[in-house]
């Protein structure tokens, strides 16, 4: 009868070079994985219990949106001092009264897929490259303009507002919540192939 190698009983062997080598064993690997993941769950759970409760209550997304808006405002203070933000309710009032022109700073395909109903596409990259003649598109430099992009960490709405301000437009607001915030509020939008 053939001798059974010792590796079955003992997962640690000595190699010919007298070095300790471990033998491949899924049982040991899975057990060790459980230790690492278990410890991570314990530490993460204890140190982040408020975050976890917010996640369970469904409050986390609102908190994240608020944080992103605060971050954007802080960025605006550095990038474009004197910039003005407008909230969803105020912008909707101006929209209803037809007092403001909404400018979508995202790319043309993004605008075409979905945008605020009645908004004008003014991609920041196209504007900076000089592909748009601003005097023809926006002749009134005193018009009330509201720029927006994708909300969250998107800052091209802010960049568009800065660019317009540098070109002499003096009545610009930034909608920090962007298109996602407008859509989530149930305000009028236009999507590719449909109108709401």
């Amino acid at each position: 009868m053939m001798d059974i190698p010792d590796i079955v009983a003992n997962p640690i062997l000595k190699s010919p070079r007298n070095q300790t080598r471990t033998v491949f064993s899924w049982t040991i690997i899975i057990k060790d994985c459980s230790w690492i993941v278990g410890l991570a769950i314990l530490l993460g759970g204890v140190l982040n219990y408020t975050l976890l409760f917010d996640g369970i209550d469904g409050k986390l997304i609102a908190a994240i949106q608020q944080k992103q808006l605060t971050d954007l405002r802080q960025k605006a203070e550095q990038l474009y001092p004197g910039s003005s933000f407008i909230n969803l309710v105020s912008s909707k009032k101006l929209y209803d009264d037809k007092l403001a022109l909404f400018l979508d700073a995202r790319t043309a395909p993004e605008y075409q897929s979905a945008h605020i109903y009645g908004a004008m596409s003014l991609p920041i990259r196209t504007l900076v490259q000089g592909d748009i003649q601003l005097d023809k598109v926006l002749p009134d430099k005193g018009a009330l303009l509201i720029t927006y992009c994708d909300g969250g960490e998107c800052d091209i709405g802010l960049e568009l507002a800065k660019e317009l301000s540098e070109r002499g437009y003096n009545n610009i607001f930034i909608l920090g919540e962007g298109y996602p915030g407008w859509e989530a509020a149930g305000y009028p939008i236009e999507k590719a192939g449909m109108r709401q």
Partner: protein
Amino acid sequence: MKLLHNEYLHLAVRLLIGGLFLYAGLPKIMDTMGFASSIYNYKLFSSLLIGLTAAFIPWVEVLAGLALVLGVKVRSAALIISLLLVVFVSLAAISAIRGLDIDCGCFSGVERKANWLAIYEDIALLGCSFFIFYLDQGIISPIALIKKINSPSKKDAIS
């Protein structure tokens, strides 16, 4: 082929991957809300999943990275990191296909977009992680060195 079994190469790859995951995980632990914000940008997860991911994943990254650096539970840590990288590659691929222009949230404070470049980089890291999983025995490591110093034969030799 002999190079593949070189223990110093194993050590170098292990320190690279372990160090990278420590570097990625520690800032996320310091700024959990910032990491939660990055996960939210993918627009794929519910509030509950964002909370769970932001609370636990950075710790998994740090502990697995630390295990690789120290040379303990090497295969298990490499397996965990491989699984994480598979998830990261999948998420980045979904975002790239959807045309999202977002930060991947891989490293806090370092801008790295969830695009095809990030996917190729993560696939390379996945290759390194598989390499550790299959070939690395954790023979050269701080823990192995401490064990060697404290081993009875060494003590006898010193005395």
